């Protein structure tokens, strides 16, 4: 499970980071989602090659199993990234409502103007 996972995670990381670096905050949000998937897969890769192994559910005879710890970590990570996603979405939504744009350059310029006006 090394080479193929490595390729997938690398590709997801590349796309995600490219999107995160965008000026458009919506694209940043999407990039964040890709990145969180990428990180989950990265963690999964550390649980070792699954071929010939079973899910970490102890029962009669299904040994050896994959490492359960990365899976527990990923499960936590998935839920947390859901919470963060919800927060980011509503943040972008609010910015769009208040300022009519999701262009971070424009938002930044508006803020700088505001700062100059109110010393």
């Amino acid at each position: 499970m090394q080479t193929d996972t490595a390729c997938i995670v690398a590709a997801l990381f590349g796309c995600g980071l490219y999107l995160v670096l965008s000026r458009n905050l919506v694209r940043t949000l999407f990039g964040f989602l890709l990145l969180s998937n990428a990180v989950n897969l990265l963690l999964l890769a550390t649980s070792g090659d699954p071929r010939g192994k079973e899910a970490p559910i102890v029962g009669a005879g299904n040994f050896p199993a994959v490492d359960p710890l990365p899976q527990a970590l990923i499960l936590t990570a998935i839920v947390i990234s859901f919470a963060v996603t919800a927060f980011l979405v509503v943040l972008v939504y609010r910015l769009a409502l208040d300022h009519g744009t999701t262009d971070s350059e424009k938002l930044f310029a508006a803020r700088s103007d505001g700062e100059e006006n109110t010393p």
Partner: protein
Amino acid sequence: MSLGLGLALVLLLPAAGALAVALVPRRWLPFPGFIALGVAMASLCGVLAIGSKAGAHPSFVLDWSWVPECGLSLSFLVDGLSLFFAVIVLGMGVLVLVYSRGYMAGREGDHRRFYAGLLFFMGSMLGTVFSNNLLLLFIFWELTGLASFLLIGFEHTSEEARRGARMSLLVTAVTGLVMLLGIVMLKQVTGTYDLATILRSPLPQTHKDWLDACLVLLVVGAFGKSAIFPFHFWLPNAMTAPTPVSAYLHSATMVKLGIFLCARLFPIFGERELWAPLLGVPAFSTMLLGAVLALMSSDLKAILAYSTVSQLGYLIGYYALGPNGGVDYDYLHILNHLFYKGSLFMVAGIVEHAAGSRDIGKLGGLAPRLPLTAASCAIACAAMAGLPLTTGFLSKEFMLKEIFSAFSVHGYLGSFAVVCVVLTSLLKVAFSAKIILRVFFGKEPETVTAHFHAPSAWMTLPPAVLSGCALLAGIAPSFLNPLLQPFTVPGLHAGTAEHFQIWHGWTRELWVSLAVVLAGLALYRVSHYGDRPCPGVPSYLKAERLFEWLHEKTIAAGRASVRLFQTDREQSAVLAVTAFAGVTLGAFAWKQVFAGGFGPLLQFVDFTGGMSPLRLLVGVFIVLPALGLVLFRSWGGQLACLGISGFMVTVYFVLGRAPDLALTQLLVETVSIVAIYLLLGRCAKQGLLEQWSDLPSSAMAQGLRVAVSCSVAAAVGVLILVVTGMPHHNPVGNFFIRHTEDMAHGKNAVNTILVDFRGLDTLGEITVLLAAMLGCLGLLMRYRRNSEEQKQGRDLTPGLGLGEEGKS
């Protein structure tokens, strides 16, 4: 009643009173002033009972364990010094609370806050003086500063009051922290925070430099609290507090904590060479400086504040020059100051109340209208000037006597002290004359006539009591000896105090006194000839300007550093992070090259071994939508790509033997897509998002972006290959699989890790979930508009030019 219980009651009563007054609604607890007074009186009785039960020269420790791990215990030392200060705190507290009845009349709405603050202060003050554990002492020490902050800023609507409160808090808290440093260092040398133990055993002779550093740090704390140069400026600025607070905290009790600390340190450090110059030079300079500034000031409370600074300087200097065997007259000086300064502050409050001003240029001729107050003020001023028949005279005689004897012992410092003391005594006569003559005699200005209303007896009696004490003890000083005798502390006091007498004969000190009084009167006559106004304190002598400058610069530096590290553009933050990671990885790779190439790292990597056609196929369906997400321009297409990629990750989890993950991912992906669809769909419908693809950027920026993304992707790929390729023989996961049944009684190891083995993580996680929910709801709120704004259509709804509103 045992002493322990009694002391606990004494310490807890003010705290309980403060809580009750602050929290219980007025309906159920009327007259907070009387409750505070009752609490203070009960505590005073308690302290006196403890004192009488403990007998003469008590010294015992009451100890309750608190945090033994870091040496912190609720340990209290009852000895003469702590009892003396406790009596002062509570006795003065009773008088101030009586006075407050009059001062705060007509402001019933503020009573609870005011009395709760005073009781809180009283409690922390008692804690400080009784503390035996030095860490505990520090805690109470800072609590008194906090109480002082709250009380100075009592008139919180006034900018001046807020400024004074901030200044005093900053100065005393920061110097308090320096003191904490000294306490910790002292513990390193002596091995204990226990004051009684440190007092009993001589200091080790080994760590001389450490001990000197300790002493300097501790003394900084004392100087900050007692407003000694260079920290003297906060005290006059604290005069924005209500007058009872000034009388109580800023002349009688809190500022004496520095003196208390010096008295505590005297038996420990008194014989070190550093002691006398370290304390003496700043203390005597402060004494002189305070007196000069007092003469220049025209605000009644400012005069009193500067004269307090001056007197505090003298008291510290007194310990500085104390002979090796111990001092003898510190209690006399402290009591004397308490009597006259407390009285004068209360008089200042009365005058301000009655005449509407405390600027001595705008006052005059109040004696016929306020006879009792004028008499109190006259006695207090006489005591301040050191005229006979008052405690001031006694205090000054002994002051001069001791200073003359120190003259021969301390060389240059001694002569400096003599000059300062004599000049200060002279200045004191001058500004005492100024206060009494300018306020109570002369012509009454019309503004005063127009404003005047008589003060209540609640206000006029307490200063009369204090002045009466000064007079009584001045006329019959022999009473004082037996009163003060039980409070003496071995090690601090030599026990060779002379018997106080009203007349000591024609001594050298008397002649000097006489000369000083005459010269002082002459100085007043010259400096305030006729109606010449007071010069006021020139701005180059105002140290608070330096403080304000420092304060501003600190904040500016903080802003600048934040601007340096925290940019508003998330791209630059991401770039910074990735650049840092790149440099670290690069350095690592560089090191590897020197350590023999990448061979050792890459030897385990099997580039072709880990391939599986099915997983590769799924991988293609994960990566292709991700690329589509980058390339598509319509938002529906992008969302679809995101969804497909996420759902294919689910399949990948299944292939990775992770059924729990697959289920979770499936559901989370669904809910996330719904949430994004809901909110962004609305934005898209209303045309708020101009475009969904990337916004144009320069070729250079675009190139940088692609380069960073690609190199990070490559780095991550290599990282996975290397990490997963490394043989790890005993992964921790095996432990969970082996023990999931016998320890957690479950078969699903992932679930047992989540709820049992690592349950705390899960608890944290669901807390994060809840916090995120509250954050989301918060972002769906805005400031409530008033009806006017609603009518004007000032609305945070789309299309109304909100960007512009945000700017204006």
